[in-house]
């Protein structure tokens, strides 16, 4: 980046905000699933956006979302490797976060209870997947990325994306069946 006058920075920042901030929820969602608690996710997302802004000059067009998600993923991996807080179980924070009195949708209390239980279960099951499978599930099913974009985010060939996704869905399905079998019969 040349210059560095206030005007340049301001204009650059405006353009960056315009392009990057609309993806905040997607970035935050991936952060929540990768970091597995709200405050670590907050930190990772902030770091991601600041890092993305610093590297914005080298961003040569293309899709912003996968670019941001790739940066976030690197931030999360770095955070994991420098701390021993790599958790394999759910955390306390998650438990409270998933029990808001403000419900997501309007429905009868019975439907709500069932849906919330299902959502909670699914969140937990996805969270329990090994990281390399968890990220492809979140990117595909929740953040709705194409295989090509997922490949860009996880820096792997499309073939790898495909086989990892197949394996991830298999694992998730087994876990889902086990959880359903444990709680109720359909």
């Amino acid at each position, binding site marked *: 980046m040349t210059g560095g006058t206030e005007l340049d920075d301001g204009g650059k920042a405006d353009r960056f905000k315009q392009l990057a901030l609309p993806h905040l929820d997607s970035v935050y*969602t991936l952060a929540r699933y990768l970091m597995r608690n*709200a405050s670590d996710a907050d930190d990772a997302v902030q770091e991601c956006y600041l890092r993305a802004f610093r590297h914005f000059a080298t961003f040569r067009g293309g899709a912003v979302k996968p670019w941001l998600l790739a940066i976030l993923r690197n931030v999360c991996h770095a955070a994991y490797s420098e701390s021993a807080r790599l958790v394999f179980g759910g955390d306390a924070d998650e438990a409270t976060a998933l029990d808001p009195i*403000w419900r997501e949708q309007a429905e009868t209390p019975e439907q709500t209870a069932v849906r919330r239980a299902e959502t909670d279960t699914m969140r937990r099951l996805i969270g329990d997947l090994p990281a390399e499978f968890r990220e492809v599930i979140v990117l595909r099913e929740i953040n709705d990325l194409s*295989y090509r974009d997922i490949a860009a985010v996880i820096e792997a060939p499309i073939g790898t994306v495909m086989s990892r996704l197949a394996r991830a*869905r298999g694992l998730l399905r087994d876990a889902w069946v086990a959880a359903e079998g444990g709680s109720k019969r359909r």
Partner: protein
Amino acid sequence: MICDEANVLLHALIDGELDAGNAREVEAHIAGCTKCAAALRVMQDLRKSINPRALRYAAPPGLRRSIEGKLPTSPATAASRRAAIRGFAVGAVATALAASGLLFVVTRNDERRRVLDEIVSAHLRSLQGQHLTDVASSDQHAVKPWFNGRLAGSPPVVDLTAQGFTLMGARIDYVDAKPVAAIVYRRRVHVINLFCEPAESQAESSASMQSLHGFNVRSWREKGIHLWAVSDLSADELSEFGEKFAAALKQ
């Protein structure tokens, strides 16, 4: 095509990632292979259990503000800020760094003041005309379900009659161009509008009391909800309301 291949490719088929030729090949294999057909159904069922909207997380508003605050400001804002600083005779020696720090504080305060303005305006609007409540009921079990389908959530409605605050009903209002729940209570002749919107962040914040145009506004955050109680009640009584409401929520 062999089953091992089809087992991976059927995911690409579900995801619409195959071109027409490959899709036809996979479909042809599945049509002739009961095992792979079953596998396809299983995966389709799994995807039905995944509700992307429910599984998403919304970034807390504070996070967005914090990120915006850490990025440089636009030239227009920066220029007017410089003019303002000259106007206030802070001095031409103010460094750009100090100036930008100042702006962030000012912007945040402006933002808070703007929301406060809107809360009080909404309260005033509700007292004029015939639109205090969309649903008039002192029964929390009638008021709470009324929000179903009207808001992307079900706000907290609690009965505080025993505590001296009568539930009058509720309506949808708009603050910051977003629909929010307004729950209406009354103490004697004083109306209390309780505005709430999901905060997403579970962080609780202690209550702050502010006063604007003769109205008191108590704002706080708990259980993932941002709440503003506004009334012409005294600050003490409004605090009492807030505390009773919070206590009832915890039950």
